[in-house]
């Protein structure tokens, strides 16, 4: 479809080169990412091949040592992944520091014991160096200096494009106006927690990411042609950089408005990440189609319909929810109230669709 892709391709190219520039800019002395990967690597080695590792550092590879190394490896893995993935990596870096101190302590005890390891000094020195780096990184994170390249940035990324379209039986002016008031979108986009409009063009997005993470970024509208199209892109320091364009086209035969949306974003983890996301039901194409469908529901019927099963985040029998479910998912059961006039283009306050991502 030429009319939707033409303005977009340019964006995509610009986007890729911006991406490269941004990564170069962010290389510091020792990035906490590096420490995260170090933790993951060492942890894996300790878990998978404890005997070899013990031999390498000059420890005896008896059963106790192997067990201890495995436990240490698990700890390294957890804190390493934490550093790489969590939005607030500072606390994970401090956990690494804690682990380092524990290791130093144990090593000091072994070094002074009757059966010292063969290369205690080398090991102690290396560990002390890592500890210093961890402390530096942790305090840097605490000062918020590393805020910008947190999280999923550590994973290899690859720009991906998602397209979705829907026909809404409402006039184009109404559909455009609804979309342009960006705050409206947070009610139909299930993974969006909030959208705050900063000014005419800029907005701040808070989105639930995988595994309880939160992603935030600023977006700016780059082109806005009323009742025709809106294009936007995230600002360069965004967690997940993205750009998109939405076209509003009259549907033939007076059937309302066609929405054609196209979004390009940095897929965390590249192709593998996208595959994993699909497995866990958060494939963005699906997400986008679902979001557009809910937008249609709100514009056509004034609210988003719940079924007995759909209020649950995972497969669940189609039977009425318990009161506890409703509280957990933030759905207020309605008592009888005086009727209000229906305003199709406004969402009734109680219908904020809480698809639940724990």
């Amino acid at each position, binding site marked *: 479809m030429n009319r939707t892709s033409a303005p977009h391709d340019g964006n995509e190219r610009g986007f890729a080169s911006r991406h490269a520039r941004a990564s170069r800019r962010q290389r510091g002395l020792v990035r906490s990412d590096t420490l995260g990967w170090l933790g993951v690597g060492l942890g894996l080695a300790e878990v998978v091949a404890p005997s070899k590792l013990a031999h390498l550092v000059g420890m005896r590879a008896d059963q106790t040592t192997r067990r201890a190394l495995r436990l240490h490896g698990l700890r390294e893995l957890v804190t390493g992944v934490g550093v790489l993935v969590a939005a607030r990596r500072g606390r994970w870096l401090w956990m690494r520091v804690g682990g380092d101190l524990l290791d130093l302590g144990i090593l000091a005890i072994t070094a002074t014991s009757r059966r010292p390891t063969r290369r205690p000094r080398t090991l102690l020195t290396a560990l002390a160096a890592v500890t210093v780096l961890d402390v530096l990184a942790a305090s840097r994170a605490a000062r918020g200096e590393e805020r910008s390249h947190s999280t999923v940035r550590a994973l290899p990324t690859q720009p991906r494009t998602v397209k979705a379209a829907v*026909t809404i*039986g409402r006039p184009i002016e109404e559909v455009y106006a609804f979309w342009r008031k960006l705050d409206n979108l947070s009610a139909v986009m299930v993974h969006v927690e909030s959208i705050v409009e900063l000014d005419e063009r800029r907005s701040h997005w808070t989105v639930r990411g995988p595994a309880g993470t939160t992603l935030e970024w600023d977006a700016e509208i780059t082109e806005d042609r009323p009742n025709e199209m809106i294009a936007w892109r995230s600002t360069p320091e965004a967690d997940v950089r993205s750009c998109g364009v939405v076209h509003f086209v009259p549907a033939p035969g007076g*059937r*309302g408005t066609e929405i054609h949306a196209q979004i390009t974003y940095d897929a965390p983890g590249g192709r593998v990440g996208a595959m994993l996301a699909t497995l866990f039901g958060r494939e963005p194409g*699906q997400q986008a*189609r*679902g979001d557009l*469908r809910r937008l*249609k*529901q709100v514009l*056509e*019927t*004034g*609210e988003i*319909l*719940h*079924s*007995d*099963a*759909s*209020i649950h985040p995972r*497969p*669940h*029998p*189609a*039977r*009425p*929810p*318990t*009161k506890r479910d*409703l509280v957990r998912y933030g*759905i207020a*059961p*309605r*008592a*009888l*109230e*005086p*009727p*209000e006039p*229906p305003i*199709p283009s406004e969402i*009734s306050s*109680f*219908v904020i669709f809480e698809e639940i991502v724990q």
Partner: protein
Amino acid sequence: MKATCWYGKHDVRVENVPDPKILNARDAIVRVTSTAICGSDLHLYNGLVPGMERGDVLGHEFMGEVVEVGPSVRNLEIGDRVVVPFPIACGMCGACQAERFSLCENTNPNAELAEKLWGHSPAGIFGYSHLVGGFAGGQAELVRVPFADVGPIKITGDLRDEQVLFLSDVLPTGYMAAEMCGIRPGHVVAVWGAGPVGQMAMASARMLRAERVIAIDRFGERLRMARRHAGATDTIDYEEHDVLESLAELTGGRGPDACIDAVGMEAHGHGLLHAHDRVKQALRLETDRPTALRQAIQACANGGTVVIAGVYGGVVDKMPFGSLMNRSLTVRTGQCHVQHYMRPLLACIERGEIDPSFIVTHRLSLEDAARGYELFLHKQDGCTKVVLEAS
């Protein structure tokens, strides 16, 4: 409240589940007085419909009394006696505006699932798998009815439940099938399956002035019911006679002008092809056994119409497509747009032109739902339609 819950193949249980609540502004809660087991519920019972979860509340044919309404429902009041159509429709989307309510674009929260299987999604349906929404069904004491300002029809006269209950599904479904036949004076209509939908289709075809109506089934009592109550002029027991030969004989070799498949995905049959279908269905290589549909196509007169009212779920084998194409047949089908037909059909019932209660053979209480399914599945004791009385 008590509700009939699905737990797997041939396993339904009446259990206590939470009472439904108003979740959307246009919801109503209905206290069910009468509900029926539909032939299509047997597809669920036989475990052939994908997208079921253990514990799903079943039932899409029900009526009762309104006990609670959401703030945006202005046409219903507490205490109203209503029959609820099985498709859930918003009344505002393109499909609803065109009165094709079973294609409502806004009532399937799991549209994504349906699109994977069918390309696009139809409307949500009560108690009929998560492919069509995951809505709790009406074989229960209480049921939440979304878009209650669009679907339910008020019953004001002194008609008994059994006379109006079937407005929820089988009467409009049968009527729509007959209507899709495009019956003109002198037309002959053949109906495969003399179950509830088949009976309604036959009665409707007669109302629409079909010259002759031929019922095809293997149960004597159902064929007798068709003759006695539904206006069938001829019957064929397919276990005794060859269907194609008999139809040719009955129609001077032309074949019926319209053929209605009121059987669907679990047809019975004979011979090698039937065995082949049973095996492929058991192995999940085809989802549906289209014996009746194949016959309906082959039997139909040149230029005639084949109407599919029976439910199909997925893919079928060995469809005689050459027959459709080379003989200019028209295929018409669809889940019934019940909301479109309820009012005129209620008027027919009120005028005494049709009394659909003749199909009821068994009346049980809701607690006995499991026995009802069992009876209906095995057609024990002449079982044609089970009505469950809930309160």
